[in-house]
């Protein structure tokens, strides 16, 4: 009796599942199409970058990166520009997210919209805007030359351009996190006698650290890979203002494929590392958000 019932239930379950299943052909067809697209668009080019870079063997690869002083310079320049831009945007992002999520002030929604502007403006246009401001023919150009300050065609210009393009990353990451967490813990810290810095270091920062790190990682990836805006303000002075992406392009134009792909592989490697860290951090921030959004109330015993 029991057995019979069990079987019928299983049959019912089986039937129920079958009605919701697509035909085998559709399943396999769709899976294959997806795999094909990913292979052609992502996997093959990605593998090819490394294949081309290592085509001449590991020693040649190393030579292409280090022996060419211009290439080495571009790597060092990127390693200097990107962190500086990241630090600038870290400070800006924190301040902006703080202002937007913790205060009501006129122009609050305007600020929120402005933060997104660099996402919608073409990087080339961003570069041109900087030229218009700081270039020789620009508004501040003559004054800067008088005081012997160089911004365009030198490192400060590269940093400014990178900052502009990566402006939204940290703030965009932090705003939802800080909104979900809410100001209550910070107010509690103040009520317990903490001053502003104590509140920030002991309460705010530990709560947002994963979101912040995530924003920084994304910002860094974009800063290292930035091409358009930097292209305009750099003036392509080989060995002086060429960052890694600019160097890749120049080597490619000079038909130095192994050299070009060697630098490209380094950039790709950075991207892959970023991706892995991003996935790990995403999991962390998701947990953090879920924790913050969780209803505070859980029924339980009082004593």
């Amino acid at each position, binding site marked *: 009796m029991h057995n019979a019932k069990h079987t019928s239930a299983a049959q019912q379950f089986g039937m129920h599942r079958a009605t919701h299943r697509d035909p085998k052909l559709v399943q396999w067809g769709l899976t294959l199409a997806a795999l094909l697209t990913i292979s052609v668009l992502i996997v093959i080019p990605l593998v090819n970058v490394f294949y081309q870079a290592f085509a001449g063997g590991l020693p040649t690869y190393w030579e292409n990166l280090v022996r060419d002083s211009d290439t080495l310079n571009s790597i060092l320049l990127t390693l200097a520009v990107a962190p500086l831009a990241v630090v600038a945007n870290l400070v800006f992002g924190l301040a902006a997210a703080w202002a937007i999520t913790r205060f009501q002030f006129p122009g609050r929604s305007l600020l929120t919209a402005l933060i997104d502007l660099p996402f919608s403006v073409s990087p080339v246009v961003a570069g041109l805007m900087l030229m218009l401001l700081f270039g020789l023919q620009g508004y501040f150009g003559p004054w800067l030359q008088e005081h012997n300050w160089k911004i365009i065609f030198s490192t400060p210009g590269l940093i400014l351009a990178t900052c502009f393009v990566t402006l939204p990353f940290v703030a965009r990451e932090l705003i939802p996190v800080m909104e979900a967490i809410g100001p209550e813990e910070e107010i*509690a810290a103040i009520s317990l006698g903490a001053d502003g810095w104590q509140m920030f270091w002991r309460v705010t920062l530990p709560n947002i650290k994963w979101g912040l790190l995530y924003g920084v990682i994304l910002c860094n990836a974009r800063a290292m890979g930035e091409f358009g805006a930097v292209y305009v303000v750099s003036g392509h002075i080989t060995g002086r203002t060429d960052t890694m992406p600019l160097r890749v392009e120049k080597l490619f134009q000079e038909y130095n494929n192994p050299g070009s792909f060697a630098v490209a592989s380094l950039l790709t490697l950075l991207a892959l590392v970023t991706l892995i860290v991003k996935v790990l951090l995403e999991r962390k921030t998701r947990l953090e958000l879920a924790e913050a959004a969780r209803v505070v109330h859980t029924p339980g015993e009082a004593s």
Partner: protein
Amino acid sequence: MSISVKNITKRFGDFTALDNVSVEVPTGSLLALLGPSGSGKTTLLRIIAGLEIADSGSVLCQDEDVTHHSARQRNVGFVFQHYALFRHMNVFENVAFGMRVRKQPKKLISERVRELLHLVRLEGLERRYPAQLSGGQRQRIALARALAIQPKVLLLDEPFGALDAKVRQELRNWLRRLHDEIHTTSVFVTHDQEEAFEVADKVVVMNQGRVEQAGAPHEVFERPANPFVMDFLGNVNVFHGRVQNGRALVGGLEVDCPEYPHQESRPATMYVRPHELEIEHSPNGAASLKARVERINSAGSIAKVFLLAVEFPVGLNVEISPERYGELGLKAGDTVYVSPRKVRVFVPEYVI
């Protein structure tokens, strides 16, 4: 440490949250700010704590004017409605926070935290995180954290608002006992009149940014100052009638109203609590209303009878004891006579 709040006004844009509010909290007392949401009670509490700045008026602690002191200088303990425990700190660190930011010696901190966890009966949970605690436990940790800074005043914002009924009741009794033990001057905000009456020494009823009435719980309940207080403090039957020559009239019901001895007839409102109405099978000579029994709810410690007046369309809520209910043998459809034992008549302000 006593607190006096003097003529506090606070506006948020066009909205007046507090309108010239004054409240006295005697030393060592437990005071309840009672009112519906939007009455300004939480804003007042936050102004006392220094978390909000009043537009005008002053806050005095004992005799010291603390209006312009920061939250840190005021040294008040604040317990938040949703606890606001630091989620990334364990229980020990949460309770220790106020002492850590004051740079107190480690040994003193751990001693005091242990003491406080004993006081709130949560010893052994030092290493737990807020997410691992029940609602009631979190609320008590929030209280221990507020007490750790040895506050001059303890402020609690809807302390039991987010808890379920049973835990609420237990924590309520526990808070009262705790207060009797430590005697810290305390103010708590609630919208639950039962909670206010059960726990507080003094109740301040607020509405739309004003204080409607302040006094001991029984005073406020027995002698409500105005219709709002009457209405807010529990169920009430409302009758609209007229007053003249010290008598109030509603349908066939006539009661004394010595507050209005004038000859001119004026509209007035009568308020009678459900337990102040009596049901009889026949008119007993006293002023009474003829009514029909509509519905009876006899589950619980009292029997609730819903009636409809026969002569004019007004519903009546009456509460009688189960014994009385048994005596009367009421059932739906019966015609009975309802007479009030006690009536409050409010004559609207005379406006010229």
